[in-house]
Every structure is written in C-alpha cells, then in structure tokens.
C-alpha cells in the first residue's frame, strides 16, 4: 500500500474504533464521570452482575435468538430448496420479491406493520395486551428468513443437480436423498444463514421495540431503557463485554473459514478411503 493509503486507512480505523475504545476505558473508571478518568476499578462490572434485570434481559435475548435462528434456518432452507425447483417464472418472481420486502423495508415499517396486525388480531380475541414473547419470536423469524434463503439459494444453484437424482436412483427416498446428498453440499450456506439469523436477532432493537409489549425485555431494549435515564458506566461495562464477545466470535469464525472446512473434509475422505482400501 502507498503511504497516503495507509494514513487514510488508519484514520478511518481511528474513526471506527475511537468511540468503542472510549467506552471500554470508561467502563473501568473509578468514578461515575463519563469524561474524567480518575482511576482503575472493576466497580461497574460488579454493579452490572448485580443488576437482575439486565441479566434476565441477556437470558431473554439468547433464548429468543436461538429459537429464531433455528426455526428460520429450518424453514428458510426448505424454502430455498422449493424456490430453487420452481420452474414457473412468474411464481419465482413473486417469491423473490416477497422475500426481498423485509430486507428493503426500513425496520421501523416492518416493526409497525407487524405490531398493527398483532394488535388488531389480539383485539379480535379480546386480549388486552397481545404483544409478548410469541409475537416477538414471529417478528424475529420473519426478518431472519430472507437472509437464510439468500445464503442457501446460491449453494443450491452451484450444486450438481444430478446428485440427488443419483441418490434416488440408487433407492433413497427424496427425504433421505436430501439429507445424504443435498444437505452436505449446501451446509456452508446453511451455517452462514444460521449465524446471520442469530446475530441479526441478537442485535435487533427497532423491530423488537414495536413487537415486544411490556413484559419481555431483550438486551437492546434494556439498553434503550437504560439510556433513557442518566447512564452510569454500568452500561459501558455491558458494552465492553459485548465488544469482547463479538471480537472473539469474529476471530474464531475467521480462523474457521470455509477453505479450512473443505480442507479438513477432504482429508477426512482420504483417510476414510485409505481405511476402506485396507479392509
């Protein structure tokens, strides 16, 4: 890289990371001040772990994200298989457009639209509050689905179409053929979709805000409620922990990239083949 490029890149990285660095530093601040650093202390971390509401929000977020990711991945993968087999051009076009809607629409509109429907249906059944964990789960599955489909569909298109046919010619049922011949081929896409769905759900605030009601609080909603009042560095301690969790996850997933997986799979197959040869 040229010198000017290096300086420019460094400046952009400073822009991206300075605010985060400040959060991390001030989470260890002795005093409550958010601008003067008076000494190192773990006080705010202790406070954070004593905050039952935040801990509950973490648990809620994880339960929601895992459920939404698993359901949307299962449904999205099946949908991708179906969409990939669609021969009717018009139907295909319609499916693609509908799938795109949640990605193009601003979050606030997705959130408002689902909320309006939930409230309306709830009122039909005479419920006072119709927003709860269930409505939030539906909302999260809905905005995760397109991302899963978009990850799986290209893998299906790249796949050799004769693979499942061969499996079925050799006596597999369609479902078994899918498990044995198709699924291993599209697995990288399915995994990426699952991870994307999980992180999207984990991070979502806007759609959750409109579909959560009062009872169920996720971490982003908890953060929102914390920042409504004057903030203590407790929130910074939380942000710091989130930052390091993300950092670790990204580093691990980068080490465990696709090439690596394929290399290992190839090695395993070679080992297997040589074992079979021996016997």
């Amino acid at each position: 890289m040229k010198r000017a490029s290096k300086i420019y890149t460094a400046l952009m990285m400073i822009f991206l990371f300075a605010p985060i660095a400040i959060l991390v530093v001030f989470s260890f601040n002795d005093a409550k001040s958010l601008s003067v650093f008076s000494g190192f202390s773990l006080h705010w971390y202790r406070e954070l772990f004593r905050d039952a509401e935040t801990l509950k929000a973490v648990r809620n977020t994880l339960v929601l994200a895992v459920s939404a990711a698993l359901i949307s991945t299962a449904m999205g993968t099946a949908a991708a298989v179906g969409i990939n087999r669609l021969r009717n051009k018009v139907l295909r076009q319609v499916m693609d457009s509908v799938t795109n809607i949640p990605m193009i629409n601003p979050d606030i509109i997705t959130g408002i639209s689902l909320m309006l429907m939930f409230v309306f249906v709830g009122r039909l059944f005479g419920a006072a509050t119709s927003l709860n964990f269930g409505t939030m789960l539906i909302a999260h599955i809905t905005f995760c689905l397109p991302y899963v489909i978009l990850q799986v569909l290209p893998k299906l298109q790249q796949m050799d179409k004769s693979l499942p046919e061969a499996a079925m010619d050799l006596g597999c049922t369609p479902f078994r053929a899918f498990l044995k011949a198709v699924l291993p081929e599209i697995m990288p896409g399915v995994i990426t979709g699952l991870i994307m769905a999980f992180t999207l759900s984990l991070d979502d605030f806007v759609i959750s805000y409109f579909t959560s009601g009062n009872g169920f609080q996720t971490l982003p909603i908890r953060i929102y409620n914390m920042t409504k009042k004057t903030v203590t560095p407790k929130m910074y301690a939380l942000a710091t922990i989130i930052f390091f969790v993300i950092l670790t996850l990204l580093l691990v997933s980068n080490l465990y990239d696709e090439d690596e997986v394929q290399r290992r799979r190839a090695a395993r197959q070679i080992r297997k083949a040589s074992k079979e040869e021996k016997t």
Partner: protein
Amino acid sequence: MNKKTSSLVQRLTLTPYSVWAVLFIVVPLVFVAYYAFTDSSFAFTTDNITRFFTATSVVDDGETVREVHTYLVIFMRSLKLAVISTVICLLMGYPLAYIMARAPEKTQKILLTLIMIPMWMNFLIRTYAWMTILQDKGILNGFLTALHLRPVHVIGTESAVIIGMVYDYFPYMVLPIYSVMAKLDVRLLEAASDLGCPGPSVLRRVIWPLSIPGVLSGVTMVLVPSISTFYISQKLGNGKFFLIGDAIEGQYVANNLHFAAAIAFILMVILLVCMALMQKLANRKLIVA
C-alpha cells in the same frame, strides 16, 4: 424422480414459507394501509393522510414566530440529514473500499473484519458513545481545552445527528462497494493505462462506472435506515430535531396507531418511488457505460 413425488416435494418445502410470508410479510403491510385509511372505529377516512400534509404548528426560534407544516418540515429535515449523511459516507467510504480492494489479500481480510466489528455492536451503544464524546463537558471538549483550543458546542445540533448517522451506517457503505471492487478485473485497469489513459481518468472512466452497482446498494443501505431512524436524533439532537422515525415512534407511544400507520405508509410509498427511480437511473448509466 417421477412427477408425483416431485410436486409433493415442491409443496412440502415451499408451503410453510409461503404461508408464513403471506401471513407475516404481506398481510402486515396491508394492515399498514388499512390503519392509515381508517379512523379509530375502523371507518374509512383520508384524514390521517391529509393530516400529514396539512397539520401546522407554531415555531418560535427566539427571533421570529412562524407557522409551519409540522410533518412536511419533519420529512424534509429527515431527507436532508439522511442525504448529507449518505454523501459523507460515500465520500469517506469510496476511497477506503478502493484501498481495501487493492491491498494484499491478508490485509484485505483483516480490514474487512475490523470494519465488521462495530457493525456487530448494537447501534444504541454506538450512538451513546458519541453522546459521551460530543457532550459540552465531554471528551472532545476536554481534549480541545487541553490543547488550549476553544471548546465546541456540537451536541444538540444537526451536525451531531449527522455524525451519529455517518458513524452508525458507514460500514454499510464500505462493504458493498468493496465487494464490487474486489471482483474488478485488474487487467481492465492495466489495459486502460497501457492505452494511455492517465490515472485520474482510469478512476473516472473505468473504475467508477464499474463500481456503480456497489455504490447504489451502499447508498440504499445507508439512506433507508438513516431516513427512518428514531434513536440517533433523540440522543444526539437532544430531541430538538424530530425526524420522520421519531414522528412514527411518538404516535406509537401516544397510542395513535392510525396516524402512526399513515406516516409509515407515506414513508413507504416515497421510499418505493425513490428506489424505482434509482434503479432506472442505474440501468441507464450501466448501458451508457
């Protein structure tokens, strides 16, 4: 595979998603329109829509007292701030994407990860971090005072809102442009300069036209969330710069669901028209290029 099992597979795989998509993607949008065009007893009315275009309020900025169209002013302000933020993101992000795409592969990977890390932090936290920095007695002014410079008043101004938007959505501009540029055929650039095209011209006549798809998706990915945001303006603008997202959220909190739906409906229609226009523009540009 015989035809019968084939259609059975088709039905089994596609049905759950189709039902889901209709119930939770299509029907909710119909509900937005339904609420937008009805009053609280669900009788048809266009009042909500007309209210958006005609409601007025009195503004007293200390010098003059004026009557303005409340929601039109809010909408124009959202549009202005979002467009400014998008342009700044583009001006800052394009060179970075270009540098990244031409860097050695290992550097590319590291930079990509670095850009994605802030994206994974919740935008509430990112916005709040800027609030700490920009406060009158915050870190920025502490820094300026230490350098014997005059402190600046940023928080509660439009600039603060723009800074927040640029920071929050910057990665969404860089990533699509980078992914298009990384696939650019280097031989095209070499051919251009071999044929005597000077450096700046290569950028203008070869790289720029080829990167337009990336720019367009970057622009959409920054413009759409920044025009509809409702947290950034509340925190960094001290609630002084109501944006269209704030208006929707405010009506939701006040339980005026029909008017909230009307604003959302209008926003959706405007965005759809914008995107269609942009797509058309892009197609024409691509043909010319």
